[in-house]
C-alpha cells in the first residue's frame, strides 16, 4: 500500500532502552509508512509498551535514532511527539462521558469565536465531516459519549487523535474490552485510517483478524524485534511461533531492506 520509493513517515533505527539491568528494548528498527497498518505483537513484557512510550515521548530512548519523512528528529518529551503528529489512543480512552461526541473530539481545541466563546456549530459540523471521512456512523455527533457502545467510543477516541493532528496513530489494545461485533467496527475503522494515509500501529493480543487488518506484523520478543514481515506472507501459526520463540527470528522487509518489499 505504501509507496516503497518514498521515505517512510517514521523510521526507528537501533532503538534501545534499559531500566537498570533489565533490557526492555534492544536494537529495534522499524519503519512506519503512510497508509500502512503495523500489528505490534508479543508476549507480556516483550517491550511493546516500552516502544509505544518511546514513540509517544513518555520514555526517552537510551540509544537509537528517529527519522521523520527522511529527516532526523528527536523525541524527548510528549510535546515533541505531538508536534510530529504522533498520537496515542490508550486503552481507557480518556473520554468525557457526560459530553457530546463533537466536544470529545475537539476537547481542549474547541473552535472559538471572539476568543472566549465556543463555536458549537462549527465544532459539530467539523465533527460530522471527520466522522463521515472515517466512515463512522453515529446517531448524532451531539450524542453524549455515555450512550455509545465500546466500539463507537473507540471511534471517538481515534477521531480525537486525528483532530489533534495525528498522522501516526498508536492504538493500545483497541479491541481488548470489546465484543465480536464491536471488534469488527474497530477493524473497519483501522482500515479507513489506512485509506486516510495515516500510519497506524496496533498493539494487540487478539490474533484472530490481525492478518486481515494489518499490512505488516512486528513481533517483539525479550526486547528484540524477533519478526517483521508482510501480513500477506504470514500465517497465524507463524506468529504464535515467533511470540513464543519456538520459531527462529525472521526479519523480512525491515528497515534495512525496505526496497525489496512488495507491499501487497
Amino acid at each position, binding site marked *: 500500500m505504501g509507496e516503497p520509493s518514498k521515505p517512510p513517515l517514521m523510521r526507528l533505527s537501533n532503538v534501545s532502552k534499559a531500566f537498570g539491568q533489565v533490557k526492555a528494548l534492544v536494537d529495534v528498527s522499524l519503519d512506519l509508512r503512510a497508509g500502512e497498518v503495523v500489528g505490534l505483537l508479543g508476549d507480556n513484557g516483550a517491550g511493546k509498551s516500552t516502544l509505544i512510550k518511546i514513540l509517544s515521548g513518555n520514555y526517552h530512548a537510551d540509544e537509537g535514532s528517529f527519522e521523520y519523512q527522511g529527516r532526523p528528529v528527536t523525541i524527548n518529551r510528549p510535546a515533541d511527539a505531538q508536534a510530529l503528529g504522533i498520537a496515542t489512543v490508550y486503552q481507557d480512552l480518556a473520554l*468525557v462521558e457526560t*459530553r457530546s461526541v463533537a466536544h470529545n473530539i475537539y*476537547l481542549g481545541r474547541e473552535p*472559538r469565536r471572539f476568543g*472566549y466563546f*465556543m463555536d458549537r456549530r462549527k465544532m459539530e459540523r467539523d465533527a460530522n465531516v471527520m466522522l463521515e471521512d472515517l466512515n463512522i456512523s453515529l446517531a448524532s455527533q451531539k450524542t453524549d459519549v455515555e*450512550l455509545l457502545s465500546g466500539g463507537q467510543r473507540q471511534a471517538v477516541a481515534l477521531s480525537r487523535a486525528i483532530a489533534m493532528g495525528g498522522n501516526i496513530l498508536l492504538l493500545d489494545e483497541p479491541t481488548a474490552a470489546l465484543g465480536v461485533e464491536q471488534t469488527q467496527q474497530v477493524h473497519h475503522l483501522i482500515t479507513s485510517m489506512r485509506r486516510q494515509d495515516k500510519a497506524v500501529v496496533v498493539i494487540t493480543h487478539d490474533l484472530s483478524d490481525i492478518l486481515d487488518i494489518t499490512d505488516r506484523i512486528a513481533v517483539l520478543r525479550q526486547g528484540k524485534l524477533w519478526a517483521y514481515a508482510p501480513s500477506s506472507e504470514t500465517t497465524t501459526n507463524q506468529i504464535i511461533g515467533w511470540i513464543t520463540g519456538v520459531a527462529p527470528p525472521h526479519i523480512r522487509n525491515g528497515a534495512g531492506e525496505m526496497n525489496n518489499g512488495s507491499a501487497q
Partner: protein
Amino acid sequence: MISALKRQDNWTLIGLFITLLMLIALFSWQSEFFFTTRNFINIGQAISIRGLIAIGLTVVMIAGGLDLSMAAVAAVAGMVTASLITLEVNSVLVGVLGIAAAGVLGSFNALLIVKFRINPIIATLGTLLFYRGLAFVSTGGDNIVIGVNAWSELGRGSWLGAPITVWLFLAVVVMGMCFMRFTVAGNHLYAIGGNSEACRNVGIRVDRLRGWTYVAQACLAGLAGLMLTSQSGTALPSALNGAELDIIAAVLLGGIALSGGRGGLLGTLLGLLIIGVVQNGLILLQVQIYWQSVVRGAILIIAVTLDSLRRGGGYR
C-alpha cells in the same frame, strides 16, 4: 430532537418543570392568595438571596467540586460591609471591598483544594467553621446596625414593580447560563466535572479553572451577604447560619450531580422555585412551620430517587 430527548439532563428539567406547575396549580386551588402578582414577587424575593449563592454552588459542583463555606462567606462579607458603612466609607468602595473580602476567602478555599489537594468537603467544612468564627469574633458576637441609608435601596428598592434583589438574581442567572453554555471556559468546567484526567491529558488547565469557580462562588456569596445586610439594615454574624444545607438541597434537586459534569443553572433555578413555592404555599395554607423541613426533605428524596431509578442507579 431525538438526541435532545436522550439527554438525561433534559428529562430532569422536564420533570422539575411539571412538578413546579403541579405545585402552583395545587396551591392556587387551595389558597386564593397564592396566584397573585404580589405573592409571586414574595416568592422571588424569598429565593433570590440564597439563589445567588446557589448559582455559584452550581458552577462549583458542575466542575466536580463542593463548597460548604459559602453561607459563612456571606456572613463575613456582610460584617465587612457593615463595618465599612459605619466608618462612612464611600458606598461604591464599600461594595467593592465587601465582595473582594469574600473573594479572598474563596481564594483560600481554592488554595486548599487545588494546591494542597484537600477533598473539597473537608476543606470547606474547615473553612465554614473558620469563616463563621471570624464573623462572630469580629464584633464579639454583636450585630452591626447600619439602619436605613443610601445602602438600603439595594436590598429594599424595586424597579419596574419587582425588587432589585430579584432583578439582580435573574441577571446573574442569565449571565451564568450564557457563561456555562456559550464560553469555552464554561464548557471546560462541564468536561472537568465529567473526567478531569481526560481534560488534563488534552492540556486544559484544570486546577486553574477549578480554582476560579471557588473564587466566583465566594464573590456571589459576598454579593448575597451585601444584599442581606442592606435588606435588613443589620449585619448578623449568624446570617444564613445553617442555610448551607438548604442551598445544597436546592442545587441537588435541580439535577446537579455530586460527581459533577451534569446539570445546569436552569435546573437550579427550577429547584429554587420549587422549594420557594412549597415554602410560600405552606405558609399561606397555615401549615405548622415545622412541616416545612419535612416537606422539603421529602421533595429532595423523591426527586433524587426518581432520578437514580431512571439512570439505573448512580451510587456504588
